[in-house]
């Protein structure tokens, strides 16, 4: 019922575009720092752990780059970063809309004749679906870059081996698979958070509870859909 009100044509196109840009800024651009930071360090850790675990002289050091690339692109960037975004962006959406509910700002929109569900939630969903893939691609780059930096600093592998490794048997399909998962996860994060925020009733305590529920439920759904999509797309 709520989602039917969300996914309707915006009442005023110009205002929708303005809100969309604001949401891309708030939900996406402001997440670049944390995404880049976590990805670079995780990439470094994956590369170091892989390098330390290769003690068989028959396994070439190019495996470090290959393993880092596969781990980052297949799982870490789309799933783990989406879980992190579920926490950061999901709680932001739920608490923002929840606070608007308890301070009667949503009632004010309704009284004016504005479809508040569409006005508040739709730009966030569109912004998430548009910007999250960009964040995930950034995360992939940063993860692989982090691995390369770690190899350079520790001397566990050479730049040549690492770069050769990340080039071995590269299939564009794994990026497509990762981005498709990201789209699903972005949709889950924004709609679940919007739903819990919009349904908030009460005061500050309930806003906190809505925010927590949004993060927990969207995280669980991300994990479940990760399994389903992996089964569907990689088999």
């Amino acid at each position, binding site marked *: 019922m709520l989602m039917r009100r969300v996914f309707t044509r915006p009442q005023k196109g110009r205002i929708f575009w303005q809100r969309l840009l604001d949401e891309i800024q708030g939900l996406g651009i402001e997440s670049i720092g944390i995404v880049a930071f976590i990805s670079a360090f995780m990439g470094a850790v994956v590369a170091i752990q892989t390098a330390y675990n290769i003690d068989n002289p028959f396994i070439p050091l190019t495996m470090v780059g290959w393993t880092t690339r596969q781990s980052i692109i297949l799982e870490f960037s789309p799933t783990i970063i989406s879980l992190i975004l579920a926490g950061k962006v999901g709680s932001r959406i739920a608490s923002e809309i929840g606070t608007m509910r308890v*301070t009667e700002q949503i009632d004010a929109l*309704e009284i*004016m*004749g504005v479809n508040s569900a569409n006005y508040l939630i739709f730009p966030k969903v569109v912004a998430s679906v548009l910007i999250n893939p960009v964040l995930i691609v950034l995360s992939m780059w940063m993860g692989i870059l982090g691995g390369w930096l770690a190899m350079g600093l520790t001397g566990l592998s050479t730049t040549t081996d690492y770069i050769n490794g990340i080039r071995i048997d590269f299939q564009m399909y794994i990026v497509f698979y990762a981005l498709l998962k990201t789209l699903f996860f972005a949709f889950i994060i924004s709609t679940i958070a919007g739903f819990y925020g919009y349904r908030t009733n009460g005061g500050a305590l309930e806003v906190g509870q809505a925010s927590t529920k949004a993060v927990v439920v969207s995280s669980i759904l991300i994990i479940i859909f990760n399994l389903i999509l992996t089964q569907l797309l990689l088999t």
Partner: protein
Amino acid sequence: MIEAKEINKFFGDHHVLKDISCEFEKGKTNLIIGQSGSGKTVLMKCLVGLYEVDTGIITYDNRNFSTMNFEQRKNLRQEIGMLFQGGALFDYMTVEQNVMFPLDMFTKQTKKEKLDRVNFVLERVNLENVNKLMPSELSGGMRKRVAIARAISMNPQYLFCDEPNSGLDPQTSGVIDQLIKEITVEYKITTIVNTHDMNSVLSIGDNVAFIYNGELWWKGNKETILHTSNKELNEFVFGTELTSRLKK
């Protein structure tokens, strides 16, 4: 004129509004008074459609609000302005953007026309040089005045005010009351004010409806309210130390 006929509202088993029928006249400030929890806010929310009534009819100048679909209500709501208890200003917008919001959403005016209208209504509520301030930078009284400015920016035919004086000192409350009264007369609006502030009742109560335990218990005006023999209303009116001393 707004008419409510035999309105009933339940929350689960709790009968909140019981067969309420009343009329709210145009060009007058119509007050709904009652103790906290008596049902006056629920009544107001039913009148504007934020809650659906279980039975009964609400009409706006003979237009049946109760049977309107979403689109029809949306159109009617452009004739409604509402002042909420806390102001309900949009936190992420400046004062100017808040007041301009309904104009942006529902008119095709140019930027200059909208800005002129914003400045006009802000001046009307005695606010100047606040256009670029955020709601968090305003005092309680100023927030209420900005909310009034936003409510009247579209030239509404109906103005609803939910406890406009809550959280304000008596002097600022008086200013807000007078502003509501002036706007009502000036623009010939049907104004409905929810309050339990007796100062408001005595200064702007052209029509007063007293709600008690979800029932319309008494109807009158600011002149007759002090001379009623209605026991529950007397307890409400003279319930404070100040008013009981004045009565003595």
